[in-house]
């Protein structure tokens, strides 16, 4: 995915819409207008545009409003069909056996399992494993029960091999080689270390400290999985819970020995991905193998414990910062040594310093490998990890100098958008009345209130590869078709809204067909690029359809195409608004086949429609019980710019969801593996704790409407970046407990307060 892994913290462009504006060109059209039944010659000035534009915000009727999701009704009534819900005749249910050890030699006898009634397949997948949770066998049965019986009947012997599951084991003398070339990747270096060290040494306030975040799971409520409908013959259908409808097609075709044009992928609805569901995955490949063998539809959804060990994660990391601050609050220098723990993968970490300017800087980032599954992209990969230490360093140094935490942030931010956003969240959360703005509150033995801040950035943007069809039928119905997927983020509503806006219709007048590889192609949903890739293509198709329809209607309305207007469910000439046709009447003039138009993401035309670079700021207010170490988040405030919001309700939902995910990261989430036994200790929702409805604080999510860019920008990533940093800082602010290792469990808070060892 193109923008999944930004290597640093790009300074987001300013929100000034003038930067993208082109001079307006207009031309005059001579026409006649009926005045009291008498035709009169008039001149009307129309804008000459060379491509689609969103238009002025004040004129928008659908976009930038609070829309109901078009998939709301099917979802609230339980009719929405997810991959897990697909039922086909003769379908078998497959289950994986995942290796419980980080590395082992495995022997599996499948004979007993195969003898059981209802069991259709038992296949050994692997005899030597490299990561905890690696699939080693697959079984399939007529019901899920038969599959479970088969799993139990497998005779498996494990010979555990030496492993490394954590940093200490991976870096120990004589550690087993996790990857061929050892347990450390090639470090990425930036800046001049000596220069940075010198700047730090000369600064009046200095700090050296290590900050770490644990491995986090995506924890989508629907696990990974597929249903492969292959019954022999020349075609197959794959139902898949994926972030990219089209990715699986080629892979499935290859595995089944078919051609891409013989395979259809369907993603009607999917239960969340957050970056973890891009391709067919090993589970999908295994399902193909079973389907090929049995020539029957195969249902393979990961069970929750398997999901935890083999379906990806956000890499943990550990960063040692050395930093110095000048008396005015500006950072003089910063040195960061970061390690990323992405299992067999490279992990992710946005290059320090995160967003803030930090004077003379040097950073070194290196991957440390372990025998656990590879990390995958997860909502703003690398950014939350980089934010955590950076925001903490600022606070710790500010306290040394007795400076205001808000002012210190502003002193290190060139882009004034963040200044304004920080001021706003500070005001909302009550910073200016807060007693501890320059030093932490007391370790009193009672409950203390604290406030903390964090900021975020992301790119967004979009790329080519998305095409779209818009069809107007003779009966007035409108269909927009594009093969994109809706992860829950609202892309189905987005495409509907854009077309409705174009024709002055309501959301309900347009039907969106998405989530099928037979529809026009679309890119994957990663790195908040869906909006930037999808919306220009849909707009392009809608604009083409509008122009074609205007051409068709011009003679009927006795006007020029440039004067045909669509508004409020009516069609009319700008010269004679009173002689309007209803939308239905207008469509009834079409030929039987209706009107079809096509559009696509074109670099030049898209440039006027989509944007890139966002800013966000969040503040958290917590209550720390200094006697028990318990932290309760009382309030979170977030502000986010996003160019032109398509659906304000959806944007707010993204903000709320992102902030609560980061609250969960701050207080609860952590993958735990016993290094001695090599076992996953919390591969379920009972022991891997997610924030639930009881933990949510008062939430204020603000769409930054000072951003007047007439461009759409994806919104998924930035909301998750700074919340946990703000919460950890708020805990420090409340009572002086600086916990440098997430999650902020009571024991760590008490240790930081010196109440326990």
């Amino acid at each position, binding site marked *: 995915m193109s923008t999944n892994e930004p290597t640093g913290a790009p300074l987001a462009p300013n929100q000034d819409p003038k930067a993208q504006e082109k001079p307006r060109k207009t031309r005059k059209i001579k026409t006649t207008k009926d005045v009291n039944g008498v035709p009169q010659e008039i001149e009307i000035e129309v804008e000459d545009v060379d491509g689609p534009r969103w238009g002025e915000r004040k004129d928008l009727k659908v976009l930038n409003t*609070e829309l*109901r*999701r078009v*998939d*709301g*009704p099917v*979802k*609230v*009534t*339980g*009719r*929405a*069909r*997810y991959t*897990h*819900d697909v*039922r086909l005749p003769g379908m078998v249910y497959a289950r994986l056996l995942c290796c419980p050890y980080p590395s082992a030699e495995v022997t599996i006898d499948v004979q007993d399992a195969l003898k059981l009634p209802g069991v259709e397949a038992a296949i050994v997948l692997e005899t030597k494993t490299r990561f905890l949770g690696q699939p080693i066998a697959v079984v399939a049965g007529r*019901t*899920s*029960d038969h599959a479970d019986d088969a799993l139990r009947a497998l005779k498996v012997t494990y010979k555990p091999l030496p492993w490394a599951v954590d940093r200490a084991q991976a870096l120990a003398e004589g550690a087993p080689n996790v990857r061929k070339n050892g347990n450390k990747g090639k470090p990425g270096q930036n800046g001049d270390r000596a220069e940075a060290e010198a700047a730090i040494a000369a600064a009046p306030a200095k700090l050296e400290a290590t900050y770490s975040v644990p491995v986090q799971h*995506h*924890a*989508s*409520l*629907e696990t990974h999985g597929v249903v492969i409908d292959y019954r022999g013959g020349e075609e197959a259908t794959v139902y898949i819970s994926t972030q990219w409808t089209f990715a699986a097609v080629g892979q499935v075709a290859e595995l089944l020995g078919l051609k891409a044009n013989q395979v259809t992928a369907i993603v009607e*609805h999917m*239960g*969340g991905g*957050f970056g973890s569901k891009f391709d067919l995955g090993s589970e999908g490949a295994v399902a193909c193998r079973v389907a090929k063998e049995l020539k029957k539809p195969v249902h393979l*959804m990961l*069970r*929750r414990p398997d999901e935890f060990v083999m379906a990806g994660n956000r890499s943990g990391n550990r960063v040692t910062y050395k930093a110095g601050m000048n008396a005015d609050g500006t950072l003089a220098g910063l040195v960061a040594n970061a390690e990323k723990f992405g299992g067999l993968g490279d992990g992710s970490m946005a290059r320090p310093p995160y967003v803030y300017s930090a004077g003379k800087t040097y950073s070194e980032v290196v991957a440390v490998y372990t025998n656990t599954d590879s990390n995958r992209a997860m909502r703003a990969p690398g950014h939350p990890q980089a934010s955590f230490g950076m925001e903490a360093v600022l606070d710790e140094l500010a306290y040394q100098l007795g400076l205001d935490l808000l002012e210190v942030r502003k002193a290190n931010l060139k882009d004034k958008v963040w200044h304004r956003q920080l001021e706003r969240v500070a005001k909302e959360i009550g910073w200016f009345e807060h007693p501890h703005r320059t030093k932490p509150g007391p370790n009193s033995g009672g409950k203390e209130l604290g406030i903390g801040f964090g900021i975020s950035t992301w790119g967004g943007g979009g790329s080519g590869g998305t095409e779209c069809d818009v069809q107007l039928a003779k009966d007035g119905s409108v269909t927009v078709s594009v093969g994109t997927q809706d*992860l*829950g*983020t*609202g892309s189905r509503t987005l495409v509907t809204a854009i077309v409705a806006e174009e024709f002055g219709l309501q959301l309900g007048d347009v039907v969106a067909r998405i989530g099928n590889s037979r529809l026009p192609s679309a890119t994957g949903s990663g790195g908040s690029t869906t909006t930037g890739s999808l919306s220009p293509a849909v707009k392009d198709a809608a604009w083409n359809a509008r122009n074609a329809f205007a051409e068709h209607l011009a003679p009927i309305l006795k006007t020029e195409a440039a004067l045909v207007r669509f508004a409020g469910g009516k069609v009319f000439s700008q010269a004679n608004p009173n002689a309007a046709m209803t939308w239905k009447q207008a469509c009834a003039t079409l030929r039987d086949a209706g009107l079809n138009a096509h559009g696509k993401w074109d670099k030049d035309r898209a440039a006027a429609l989509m944007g890139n670079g966002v800013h966000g700021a969040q503040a958290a207010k917590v209550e720390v019980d200094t006697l028990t170490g318990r932290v309760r988040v009382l*309030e979170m405030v977030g502000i986010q710019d996003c160019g032109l919001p398509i659906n304000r*309700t*959806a944007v*707010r*939902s993204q903000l*709320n*969801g*992102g*902030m*609560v*995910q980061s609250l969960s990261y701050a207080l609860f989430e952590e993958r735990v593996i016993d290094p001695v036994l090599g076992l996953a200790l919390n591969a*379920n*929702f*009972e022991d891997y704790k*997610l924030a*639930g*409805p*009881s933990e*949510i*604080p*008062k*939430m204020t*999510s*603000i769409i930054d409407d000072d951003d007047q860019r007439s461009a759409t920008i994806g919104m998924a990533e930035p909301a998750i970046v700074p919340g946990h940093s703000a919460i950890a800082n708020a805990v420090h602010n409340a009572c002086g407990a600086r916990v440098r290792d997430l999650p902020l469990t009571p024991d760590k808070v008490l240790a930081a307060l010196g109440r326990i060892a």
Partner: protein
Amino acid sequence: MRVLHLLINGDRVTVAAPEHWTLLEVLRYELGLTGSKQGCDKGDCGACTVLVDGKPVLACLTLAALCEERAVTTIEGLLPAHVKSGGSGPDPVQAAFDECGALQCGFCQPGMMLSARALLDRNACPTRTEIQDALAGNLCRCTGYTQIVEAVELAVAKHCGVAPRRPGSARPRGRSRPPPRRA
């Protein structure tokens, strides 16, 4: 195998299933009622929540055989039940979830809405804290719960005839003033 006589969404159904099957398995794998979701199959996520005799239960932990002759309501049955009892369209909880955008992927919604329905059946005008407590067993990874709680509050407000709070202006948990209880 055992023949089970169940009462699902007002319909009497007879179905043969293994004795040890859970209600969730019977619903999803025998009856094709896939609205109840299998999020963890272990009682941790709440996605499988259904009503048995009006009480919310986790279908993944409930033996189907123990539900014979008891009224089971799944998400598929909420709208028909509302219509049958004289309402029009979806249950007010469903309507409010739709209206508030209280969903993204929607995988958690069926369980959420049934937990909410059970709450409103026993307490027509709950406080925010009571709402949060009633939903405490339902996980959602997408929405951050805020709009979900707002949706339940909207359903409550419509029922009790008071205006809902504006989105985003919620008071902190534990401080909300309880609205007047109905007798």
